[in-house]
């Protein structure tokens, strides 16, 4: 038996985490939050996000007297395993993690093991502006969120390309393979299980699989082989032509960005339509970089924040989650000069003054306008990702 399962079973017997303060009673939440310190565990590898989180900290300190400490993770899994370790050690109160930037398999794992506080998300005052019809804010990689995490940024796959060496966008994975064969060593992706590298595999899977419908359900032995066979054929052909012949990979998205700035590669995947513009503004990419999406659409997902069941400052964490949904924070996140992330708010739900905040944002030279971003493909069920990551590692990640 896998211990993760037995832990989940043990958790079922435990009492569900109750908030001292009811999220629906917002004034009481604000009261309790005053003076609290929120340890926000978020990936710390990107200076743009680090600056944004610092700005959020300044604003909630000013307005709500909540202090934000950014715990910079090199992997979100670190925070999950920390909560897990605390639960295993019986520390059901006063945990070290108050808020986690999370989505996908980490959320699925925490929700399944009952490591999350909630539901709270739809009780937040700013939930009223959230685009519940358009952006997938109520499911996360097909897993229903049920109010256990609050959305704050929308993301969609785009490809960044150096127009000095690759003049035309590539319409699909077949064209990508042909271009890489003609230009060996000029493309790579972050090493799976880095989420961006895994996203490249999923994007390729969508493009290559004969039938993509099974991707939305938990992985099934019978389907798995058939659905993923074209992906492995594609990768077998692609890998020897990658940067360093596929014998080394960048370890993260920003590392991949640095390779582009060093002119080691000409094509890179990104999960943020505005990232290229932000990076150009920060001298992290050459000015000739542009972005494109493939014809068949590209994977989109939403970043969330969740609160562990044993968080020390649940109220403060909710105040931060609510602030992240404010038009002020969302408009700043959209600005490529700061972050370049998509918004999860519905423009028509805002009043004109709030909408103006968004209209004023200059999307930057390398950002596609919303109408050119094409169809959004939903994230496959997390179980697909786990299988594909494990198989990728077995095939390409340990061979040498």
């Amino acid at each position, binding site marked *: 038996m896998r211990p993760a399962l037995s832990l989940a079973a043990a958790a079922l017997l435990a009492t569900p985490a109750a908030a001292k303060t009811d999220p629906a009673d917002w004034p009481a939440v604000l009261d309790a939050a005053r003076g609290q310190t929120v340890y926000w565990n978020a990936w710390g590898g990107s200076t743009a996000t680090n600056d944004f989180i610092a700005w959020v900290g300044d604003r909630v300190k000013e307005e709500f007297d909540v202090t934000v400490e950014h715990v910079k993770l090199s992997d979100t899994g670190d925070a999950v395993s920390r909560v*897990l370790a605390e639960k295993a050690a019986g520390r059901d109160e006063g945990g070290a993690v108050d808020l986690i930037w999370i989505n996908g398999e980490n959320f699925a794992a925490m929700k399944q093991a009952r490591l999350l506080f909630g539901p709270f998300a739809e009780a937040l005052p700013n939930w009223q502006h959230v685009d519940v019809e358009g952006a997938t804010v109520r499911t996360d990689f097909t897993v229903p969120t049920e109010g256990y995490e609050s959305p704050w940024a929308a993301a969609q796959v785009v490809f960044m390309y150096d127009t000095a060496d690759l003049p035309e966008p590539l319409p699909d994975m077949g064209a990508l393979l042909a271009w890489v064969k003609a230009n060996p060593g000029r493309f790579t992706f972050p090493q799976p299980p880095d989420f961006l590298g895994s996203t490249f595999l999923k994007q390729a899977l969508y493009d290559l699989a004969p039938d993509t419908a099974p991707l939305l359900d938990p992985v099934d032995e019978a389907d798995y082989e058939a659905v993923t066979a074209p992906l492995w054929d594609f990768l077998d052909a692609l890998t020897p032509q990658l940067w360093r*012949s596929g014998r080394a990979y960048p370890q993260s998205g920003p590392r991949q960005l640095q390779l582009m700035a060093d002119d080691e590669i000409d094509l890179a995947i990104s999960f943020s339509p505005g990232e290229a513009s932000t990076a150009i503004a920060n001298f992290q990419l050459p000015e000739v970089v542009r972005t494109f999406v493939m014809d068949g659409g590209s994977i989109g997902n939403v970043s969330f924040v969740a609160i562990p069941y044993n968080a020390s400052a649940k109220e403060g964490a909710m105040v931060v989650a609510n602030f992240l949904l404010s038009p002020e924070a969302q408009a700043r996140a959209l600005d490529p000069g700061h972050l370049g992330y998509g918004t999860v708010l519905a423009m028509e739900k805002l009043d004109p003054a709030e909408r103006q905040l968004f209209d004023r944002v200059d999307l930057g030279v390398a950002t596609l306008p919303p109408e050119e971003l094409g169809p959004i493909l939903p994230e496959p069920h997390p179980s697909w990702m786990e299988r594909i990551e494990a198989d990728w590692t077995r095939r390409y990640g340990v061979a040498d």
Partner: protein
Amino acid sequence: MTEATRPGAALRVRPRRGRRGLHLLPAMTLAVMLGPVAAGLLGTLAPAFGILPAAGLVEPGLGAFRDLLGWPGLPRATLLSLWTGLAATAASLAIVTMIAACWQGTRTFAVVERLLSPLLSVPHAAAAFGIAFLIAPSGWVARVLSPWLTRWERPPDLLIVQDPAGLALIAGLIAKEVPFLMLMTIAALGQVEARRSVLVAQSLGYGRETAWLQVVLPRVYAQIRLPVYVVLAFSMTVVDVAVILGPNTPPTLSVQVVRWIGDPDLALRLRAAAGAVLQLALVVGALGLWRLGELAVAALGRRWVWSGRRGTSMRLVRPIAVAMAAGSGAAVLLGLAGLALWSVAGFWTYPDALPEGLTLRTWQRFAPALAETAAETGIIAAVATLAALVLTIGCLEAEHRYGLRMTRRAMWLLYLPLLVPQVAFLPGLQMLMLQAGASTGLDAVIAAHVVFVLPYVFLSLGDPFRAWDSRHGTVAHALGAGPDRVLWAVRLPMLLAPVLTAAAVGFAVSVGQYLPTLLIGGGRVQSLTTEAVALASGGDRRAIGAYALAQTAAALLPFALALAVPRLVFAQRRGLRHG
């Protein structure tokens, strides 16, 4: 007036007060140092054999090891750990031996000695970042030489950094381990009358290098054997340097173990524990292998000595020795210079040797966070170093007063925290501390740092403390001072320079700690090193540059103080300026 100045007190050598406390201090010191190691090892062994009560697992079994064996990367990761560790240690030792044999007593050697402190104080992670930027195909060296010499209009697709054979990792380790072994060798040279032995051998017609290798090396090696073992154990199990310079398909065993620890799947915790146990066994095996190598080299050496060949023609080795030592030092210093430049760089792409423009934006951006993190790093290092100093001086003073002698076995105990791989006991310690309900805050991190700071402080202060001329104490006693007053008013002030140097060493060790801060701090304690390594997962060289420089400054500043303070305090007493 203290009790000791009353008439008759001078005859009483042993103090009444505090005697018991001082007597217990060595045992207490060992407990502070080895307790966490032992507890952590237990905390790792239990889950490795399938016992994790928190997950309802109480039946011992070998499932975790079976799972570990099923991981396809295991053979390569294991070999990598062994190969990088042995190669880095052998190469570092060879370079140090060559330098000492060829150049001891010359002006060149004095230059080497002077460069040691700055090189030692550069934290491993910062040195690794710098070297990575230096040697990458789009790195500084390639930029300076391209395209006019290399004709590389674009960076060549060469696997230099993170190569599967771990050569870049080995180079990075050598650059940092050579200064450490050099320092240990210089300390040992002082104890074995190296100069005189070489002179005698030379007068018998032996060449200088031959004389050194045959007469001095065996005695020096006996002194630096434990430090060499530390280098071997460290090189095999290092995490931060291996993340930056080492391969990833697969990584070294320690890196993979740390990745498993960070995985949300609890099953992987068992696998991580099994991997940590394997890593420990690997280190023990490698130490055994090294010991066999020692015996083989010693046998060959004896045959060489018996042959009686004078070997006068080793001049050729001299420039090679200097080139290798200079190369490893330059790699660290140039790498740092590259990072410094990045921290003020505007857009800077291949093949420009210099950035398009300079800007202070990075520093403005990071200054507030840097100041805060630097303060926290400083507090941890200062308290850990102070605790280590108190314990060390207490132990040494107890040794002096009660005539205790440190046995060879006790010496091993002192080195134990440096020999046991950090990944083998820190995760277990973290789990135990959580279960015991201990806070995972600043105090816990400081306690964990003491484990690693203490051995270095002890090693650094032990020899000068013991070498103090005890006749000064006799004179002070005769003037009516008791043992406490002799310690405080005579011995410690006279030993100011070595005490400060030991403190600087301890401070630098603390600043450089990555895993103890990360794991024991529960993520809430952020030091310059953990921040720098987290940023490295991103790859923004400007940010890495700023943090790596701050990290280096934090480690270097105490060294500078340790040099400057005795000069100021003892401006009128030249003999006390150096320990």
